[in-house]
């Protein structure tokens, strides 16, 4: 049977204290107080659906063969491009083969589970499907969604064999139940009354999908050991479990105290989190709600988890930086128009022909390695950099994205424009050879010193706001 071979996740490091939201908006909406506990994750200015997806996928692919991946699916309702395949950018960053199938899923909060089901139902032998959900929603300041939302990504590698969790059955109910919507070009959601959504939506559509799924599998609701379902609406998941007859204790945690609801990515994130601890033979039901409901029933196999993968979600949960500056959250998310100074006026226009020629260098961080001397360098060049050998055309592709590096030189720059000052950058040297001058991210001043171990991460390099183009490249982040 098809199954999940491995999982990964990504949760941005920044976590907004919900008390800071209340402090800013409580004067207008005192009702926010009931939601003002814990924190929510939010992406920095240089993270989006694509970069988070790449990071989750890298975790998922650790120890797996990238060469074998046959399909790359990206599910999101907030992907940066309406027309330029977002999954295709993730594919380039991961340096997957050109003959993979890439697919964007969207249009509904259930898109993550839809993609997973498609992966499980269509995977071919020896060509696993990488299924990633990623969400970075903009929430209207002062809204309940701002309190309950979060940014995150999760990745699952699906293969034709059982893996960690095999598919028992899947089922879809598709109905145009509009609990909320976001029209093309709109920034924020418009939502209908919560009580109606709870009763007519969660209360009826999800239990129906579960009932029909269980019938397919010839199982009872009581046979479900782990129930993965989430809603930003407090208590909704529990009432769904009850309505479907599933033991309330089977319901997984929602990560609402630390992450918030990450939309289309959230069921996959919770599923990955559940796989960290699920016991062999436990039956796991994952359901996604939105314009209907998609549900899949899985069974944890006896396959063991390696210690790193066991922390696939937990390690990101632990890597957190609390932020109580609400205005900073707004600014980093493009929700407030602050004075950025004239240095921010630089034109970020991307010559697309140059990006195409250099896509491996830029998007996959592929350097060069001389076949003759073994010299490793970034970027690749016709004539190699080794002063003792000026061989021409001897370099082969050499991927550097997964190579550990160390800081050689550094500064924190308060003059140059960055949305999140100061700008940390410097030279890093890869442990296996090669070096580069690069921006740092996710860094604190105390972490930046000569010799500090760093790892490369895929991030937004700049945004052409005039033309709506996002430029990506790699940065160096402090290694754990």
């Amino acid at each position, binding site marked *: 049977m098809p199954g999940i071979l491995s999982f990964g996740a990504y949760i941005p490091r920044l976590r907004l204290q919900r008390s800071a939201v209340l402090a800013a908006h409580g004067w207008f909406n005192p009702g926010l107080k009931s939601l003002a506990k814990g924190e929510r994750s939010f992406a920095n200015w240089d993270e989006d659906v694509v970069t988070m997806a790449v990071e989750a996928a890298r975790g998922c692919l650790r120890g797996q063969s990238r060469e074998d991946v046959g399909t790359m699916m990206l599910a999101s309702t907030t992907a940066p491009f309406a027309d330029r395949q977002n999954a295709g950018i993730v594919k380039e960053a991961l340096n997957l083969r050109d003959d993979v199938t890439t697919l964007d899923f969207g249009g509904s909060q259930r898109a993550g589970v839809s993609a997973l089901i498609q992966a499980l139902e269509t995977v071919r032998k020896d060509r696993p499907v990488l299924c990633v959900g990623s969400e970075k929603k903009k929430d209207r300041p002062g809204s309940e969604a701002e309190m309950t939302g979060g940014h995150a990504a999760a990745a699952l590698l699906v293969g034709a064999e059982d893996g960690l969790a095999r598919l028992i059955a899947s089922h879809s109910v598709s109905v145009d139940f509009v609990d909320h919507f976001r029209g093309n070009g709109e920034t924020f959601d418009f939502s209908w009354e919560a009580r109606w959504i709870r009763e007519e939506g969660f209360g009826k559509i999800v239990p129906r999908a579960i009932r029909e799924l269980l019938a397919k599998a010839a199982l009872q609701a009581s046979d479900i050991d782990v129930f993965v379902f989430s809603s930003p609406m407090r208590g909704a998941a529990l009432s769904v479990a009850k309505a479907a007859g599933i033991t309330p204790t089977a319901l997984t945690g929602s990560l609402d105290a630390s992450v918030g609801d990450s939309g289309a990515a959230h069921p996959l994130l919770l599923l990955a989190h559940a796989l960290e601890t699920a016991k062999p033979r436990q039956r796991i039901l994952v359901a996604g709600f939105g314009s209907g409901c998609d549900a899949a029933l899985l069974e944890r196999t006896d396959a063991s988890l390696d210690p790193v993968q066991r922390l696939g979600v937990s390690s990101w949960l632990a890597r957190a930086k609390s932020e109580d500056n609400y205005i900073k959250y707004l600014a980093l998310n493009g929700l407030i128009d602050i004075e950025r100074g*004239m240095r921010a006026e*630089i034109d970020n226009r991307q010559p697309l022909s140059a990006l195409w020629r250099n896509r491996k260098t830029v998007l996959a961080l592929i350097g060069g390695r001389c076949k003759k001397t073994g010299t490793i360098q970034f970027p690749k060049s016709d004539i190699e950099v080794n002063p003792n050998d000026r061989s021409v055309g001897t370099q082969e592709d050499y991927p550097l994205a997964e190579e550990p590096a160390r800081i050689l030189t550094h500064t924190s720059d308060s003059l*140059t424009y960055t949305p999140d000052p100061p700008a940390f950058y410097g*030279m890093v040297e890869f442990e296996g050879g090669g070096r580069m*001058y690069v921006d740092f991210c996710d860094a604190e001043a105390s972490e930046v010193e000569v010799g500090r171990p760093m790892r490369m991460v895929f991030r937004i390099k700049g945004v052409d706001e005039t033309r709506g183009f996002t430029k990506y490249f790699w940065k160096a982040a402090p290694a754990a």
Partner: protein
Amino acid sequence: MVTGIRDKVAILGMGCAKFGERWDADADNLMVEAYQEAVADAGIEPSMIDAAWLSVAFDAINIGPSGIAASIALRLNNVSVTKVENYCASGTEAFRGAVYAVASGAAQIALAIGVEKLKDTGYGGLPVRTRGTMSDMIGVVGSAPGHFAQLASAYRARHGISRDELKRAMAHISVKSHANGAQNPNAHLRKEIDIETVLNAPMVAEPLGLYDCCGVSDGAACAIVTTPEIARSLGKTDLVTVKALQLAVSNGWELQGSGWDGSYFHTTRIAAERAYREAGIDDPRAQLSLLEVHDCFSITELVTMEDLHISPEGGAVKDVLEGFFDASGPMPCQIDGGLKCFGHPVGASGLRMIYENYLQILGRAGERQRGKPPVLGLSHNLGGMPNQNVAAIAIVGLQGA
């Protein structure tokens, strides 16, 4: 057989516009200001100029493409005008063009004019600009102080020196340059400062504070060069000749290869060795009298003292703190205030450095004149950033020195 440039070309005249925030002047006005002084100093008719080189680094925000702007501003006699750009080393590059033209015999009298009009950007510091299509995709944008601040991190790591100790030596450099600038009527900044002011200034790019950074200025500088024979025929007696003129340009080794630790300028070391050989200098610490170096940032000046082989490796901090490079010390550095206080109109800076050495050697530097006129003056003009740059060195001195 390469014999080098030593004593083949003499400086006939030089000029330098008042550097500063020249809200009153366009690039054209600045060029004319420097040019008129140089022509008067040379004692020639403009029609005697055979060829010209124009240096400007930020043409996109001032004069635009080509050498035409200089030809028009100075109403040159339809001679060749070649515009050169080599980052902040452009000024020495223009000088090199003119000197080589004379040395080759292609021109009898050649002009080098450097200009930069920077104060039309609307903000302080160097303008933000692209460094090419590839750099836009994989490079660091950063600021000039941010790029040069990298030196301090690597220097500390290499020499095991504390941040505070290095900061103090860097501060000494800035205090010294301010003291020198105060003596110079043409300097942009003419205010003395104390070490506490430097140490407590707002941080620009760790560990460079506000007073570790030179500002940007408007300005122009000009040189007219010819052969020693023609100079004498025009009535010149004390001839300042070119002893060495060397450029070393990074080929990517620092940034892409292995072995460079980021604490020094690979190119400056190469250019210095070549220049000393060309000038016949064996012991620069003993033989040079005066230094004008590219002190865009205090840390740049500090490491450059070692790269020029004046201070031993790791020894610049001690030399600086002991006042070796003060105006009254054994080898003044930036006696005119340097980039730090005289100012840094990028395309003009290399020529301004040579201008100061020229004046000092001829004993014409006014209140800041060294008591005993210097014999050999070195100027070091740097463009780019520590990991990828153009290092230019010019040594001038009295003919026969």
